[in-house]
C-alpha cells in the first residue's frame, strides 16, 4: 500500500514549505517517526517526520524547492509496488484534480499521512468523505451513483472556493478558547485532538503544562495579569487615534542617554565573568525591565474593551535574519540576573539565526527591544508588534560634544525612541519611562542591585 507524503503544516502561519534537505534517499527504509526531511517554513527550519513506514520510493519535491502545504512531496510504499499512477498525479498537479480521482481507500491512507495538524484541505477532504459515506448509507437502494457523485463534486467546487478563507480558521471548543484566552495562550500554537482537529480543554491544559515544563515561570504568566475596563476617555482616545493612524495609533518619544558609565560597567562585568560576555543589549533588557516595573502602563496590551496589564515582563529582542526578522523572548526578565539574561539571549539569538526557534520561544512577549546600535544608526522609530503596547528602538553609541557643568565634554551618547500604543499610554508616561531608563543606564549600579 503506497502512502503519500504531503507538505505538512509545521507552524500556524505556514502556507508553503521548502525542502532544505532530504534526510532519506529514494530506496531507503523509513520507519514511522523517522526524520524524512528538513523543511524551511516562514519562521523556522523544522524536521518533518514520516507518518507511515515503508520504502521511500519517490522524492517528488527536490531540495531547495517550495510547495504549498498539502502538496504531494514524496511517496512511501512497498518495494515492488506500482506507484506510477500516484507519481503521475503528483506531476500533473492541480491537487484538486487528483483528489477527485482518488478512491476512498486511498483517501484513508492520505489521512493517515496527514500532518499532525491537518490542513483545512484535508479536513474538507474528511468531511466530503463522511458525506459520501452518509449518502451511501442513507440511500442504499438508490442506484443513482452518478447523481450522488455529481452532487459531491458540486459541493467540492463550492468548498474549494471558500477554502482559502477557511484555511485560517481554527476549530476550538468555546471552553478551550476561554481557558486559552484567560491564560494568554496563543491558540494557533495549540494542537487540537478533537474531531476535525478541534482544540478541546484537554489540549489547552496540556499545552500549558508543556509550556510549564519548558519554562516554569510561564505559570505566572497564565494568571498574573490584571484587567481594567477602559474608561470613557480612554475609549475615545482609542477610537479617535485609530482613525488617524490605525489600527495601532503610535506615538514616539526620544531621549538621549549618557553611556559613559554603562560602558565602564560593561567592561568591568567582562572581566568579572569572562565566560558570559554581557552585551549592551543585555544591559538594556535589564534596565528596561526595571523601568517597566515602575511604569506598568507600558507593559500592557490593548483589547477591544479593556487593557491587560502584565505582572510579568517578557522581553522580545528583535533579531535580523537574512530575509526578515524574528523576536526571541526572554521570559520573566524581572526575576533574572544580568548574567542569566546574557546567557539566555546569546542562546536565543544563535537559535534565531539558525532558524531553530520553537514557537514558544518567539511568542508571548510583553515588550520588545529593537537595537540597531551595531549599524551606525543615530536614531530610528520602530513599529509596535501587536498585541504589545510598546517597543524600544535603540540607536548606536556615538561620541558627541555635551555641556556638562558648563563645560563642553566629549561623551558617549545613545539615543533611544520608544513607540507607544496611544490607546493605552500617553506621552507623559512614555517620557517618565525614558527618564527612568536613563537613570538606570547612567547609574547602572541599580541594575545589579
Amino acid at each position, binding site marked *: 500500500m503506497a502512502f503519500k507524503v504531503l507538505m505538512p503544516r509545521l507552524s500556524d502561519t505556514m502556507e508553503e514549505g521548502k525542502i532544505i534537505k532530504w534526510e532519506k534517499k529514494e530506496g531507503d527504509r523509513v520507519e514511522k517517526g523517522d526524520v524524512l526531511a528538513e523543511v524551511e517554513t516562514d519562521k523556522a527550519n523544522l524536521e518533518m517526520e514520516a507518518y507511515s513506514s515503508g520504502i521511500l520510493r519517490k522524492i517528488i519535491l527536490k531540495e531547495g524547492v517550495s510547495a504549498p502545504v498539502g502538496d504531494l512531496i514524496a511517496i512511501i510504499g512497498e518495494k515492488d509496488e506500482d506507484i506510477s499512477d500516484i507519481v503521475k498525479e503528483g506531476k500533473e498537479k492541480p491537487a484538486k484534480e487528483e483528489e477527485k480521482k482518488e478512491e476512498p481507500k486511498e483517501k484513508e491512507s492520505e489521512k493517515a499521512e496527514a500532518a499532525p495538524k491537518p490542513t483545512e484541505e484535508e479536513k474538507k477532504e474528511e468531511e466530503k468523505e463522511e458525506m459520501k459515506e452518509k449518502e451511501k448509507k442513507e440511500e442504499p437502494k438508490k442506484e443513482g451513483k452518478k447523481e450522488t457523485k455529481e452532487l459531491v463534486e458540486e459541493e467540492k467546487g463550492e468548498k474549494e472556493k471558500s477554502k482559502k478563507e477557511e484555511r485560517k480558521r481554527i476549530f476550538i471548543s468555546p471552553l478551550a478558547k*476561554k481557558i486559552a484566552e484567560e491564560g494568554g495562550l496563543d491558540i494557533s500554537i495549540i494542537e487540537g485532538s478533537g474531531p476535525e482537529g478541534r482544540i478541546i480543554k484537554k489540549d489547552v491544559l496540556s499545552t500549558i503544562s508543556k509550556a510549564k515544563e519548558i519554562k516554569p515561570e510561564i505559570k505566572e504568566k497564565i494568571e498574573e495579569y490584571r484587567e481594567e475596563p477602559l474608561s470613557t476617555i480612554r475609549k475615545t482616545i482609542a477610537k479617535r487615534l485609530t482613525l488617524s493612524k490605525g489600527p495601532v495609533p503610535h506615538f514616539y518619544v526620544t531621549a538621549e542617554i549618557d553611556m559613559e558609565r554603562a560602558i565602564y560597567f560593561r567592561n568591568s562585568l567582562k572581566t568579572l565573568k569572562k565566560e558570559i560576555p554581557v552585551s549592551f543589549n543585555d544591559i538594556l533588557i535589564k534596565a528596561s525591565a526595571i523601568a517597566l516595573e515602575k511604569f506598568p502602563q507600558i507593559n500592557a496590551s490593548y483589547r477591544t474593551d479593556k487593557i491587560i496589564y502584565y505582572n510579568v515582563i517578557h522581553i522580545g529582542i528583535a533579531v535580523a535574519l537574512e530575509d526578515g526578522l524574528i523576536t526571541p523572548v526572554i521570559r520573566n526578565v524581572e526575576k533574572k540576573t544580568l548574567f542569566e539574561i546574557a546567557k539566555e539571549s546569546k542562546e536565543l539569538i544563535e537559535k534565531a539565526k539558525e532558524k531553530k526557534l520553537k514557537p514558544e520561544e518567539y511568542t508571548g512577549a510583553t515588550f520588545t527591544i529593537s537595537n540597531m546600535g551595531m549599524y551606525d544608526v543615530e536614531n530610528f522609530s520602530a513599529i509596535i508588534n501587536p498585541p504589545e503596547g510598546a517597543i524600544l528602538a535603540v540607536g548606536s553609541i556615538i561620541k558627541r560634544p555635551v555641556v556638562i557643568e558648563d563645560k563642553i565634554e566629549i561623551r558617549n551618547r545613545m539615543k533611544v525612541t520608544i513607540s507607544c500604543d496611544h490607546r493605552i499610554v500617553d506621552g507623559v508616561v512614555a517620557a517618565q519611562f525614558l527618564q527612568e531608563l536613563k537613570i538606570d543606564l547612567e547609574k547602572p549600579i541599580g541594575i545589579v542591585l
Partner: protein
Amino acid sequence: MAIITFREAINQALKEEMQRDEKVFLMGEEVGFYHGAYKVSQGLLEEFGEKRVIDTPITEAGFTGVGIGAAMLGLRPVIEMMTFNFSILALDQIVNNAAKLRYMSGGQIKIPMVIRGPSGAAHQLAAQHSQALEAWYAHVPGLKVVIPSTPKDAKGLLKSAIRDDNPVIFMESELMYGLKGEVPEEEYTIPIGKGDIKREGKDVTIIAYSKMFHLAMQAAAELEKEGINAEIIDPMTIKPLDKDMIFESIKKTNRCVIVQEGWRFCGVASEISSLIYEEVLDYLDAPVSRVTGEEVPMPFAKNLEEAALPNKEKIIKAVKSVMYIDQ
C-alpha cells in the same frame, strides 16, 4: 421513611389533598368503581363518595371541558387521562381553554386544575399508545408540565400541582407505577419549577427525567467503573424549567447529555440544548449530545421497539462522545 410504590405515592397525594380541601375532586375513565386503569385511585371512591370521585364516559374532550368549567367556578379538579395518548382528543380544551382563559380574562378567571396520567411507552403498546408528549404541552404558554421520576417526587409534586392556581400537566409512567422508593411519612410538598441533582459528579452532566432518569442512573453506574463521574439532573418540572441548576452544573462539568424518550425533532432536549448554547456556551468543551426516541411511530415488534427507545448503551455512547473518548 416508608418504602412505597409510585402508584401508592400518587394515591396518597390525591387522598391527602382531597382530605385537606373539599374543592378537590377526581374525574376520569374508570377512576371510581374500578379504582383506575392502573389502580391509582384505590379506596378514593369509598372514602370521598361519588360526588368527588367521578367515573366519566369515554370522552376526553367532554370531561376535560367539564373539568375546566369546574375550575373556572372555583373547584380544583384532577382529571385523569387513562393515558396521555388519549389526551390528544382533549387538546383543544387544554390548549385553547385551560391554558388561555386566565390570560384572556385579564386574570379574572383561574384554572386550578391538574391533568394527570401515564405518558410514554410501556411494552409493545404500538404506535398510537406509546407516545411521550411532554414537549407538546411544554410548548404552550399557560401550562405547567411536571414529570417526576420517583415516588417521593411524585407525591410532593402532585400536592403542589393540586394547590397551584394554574393548569398543570402531570405525567406519570405506566412502567413506573410499581417502582418503590422512600417517601417521607410526614406532610411535605416539592415546589414546581425546581430540579434535583440526583447524583453529583464532575465529568459530565446528564439531564434525564421520568423513566429516562433511571436509565441515566444505570449508565452512570457503568461509567463510574471506567472512571467517568457523571452528574445527573432530574429537572422534574419541564416547564417552568430549572435553568439555573442546569447552567451551574455545566459550568462545573463542561459537557452535557440530555436524554428524552420522545421524538428528537422539537423535543424537550432540543429546547434545553438551545438554552445551554445561549447561556453557557463559553463553558462547553463539546457540543451537547441528545439521546432521544427515534423518529418513527413506535414499532410493535419487541426488538424494534427496543431499538427505537433510548437505553443505557446509547447514553454511555453519548457521554463518551462528549468526553472525546474513542469507542
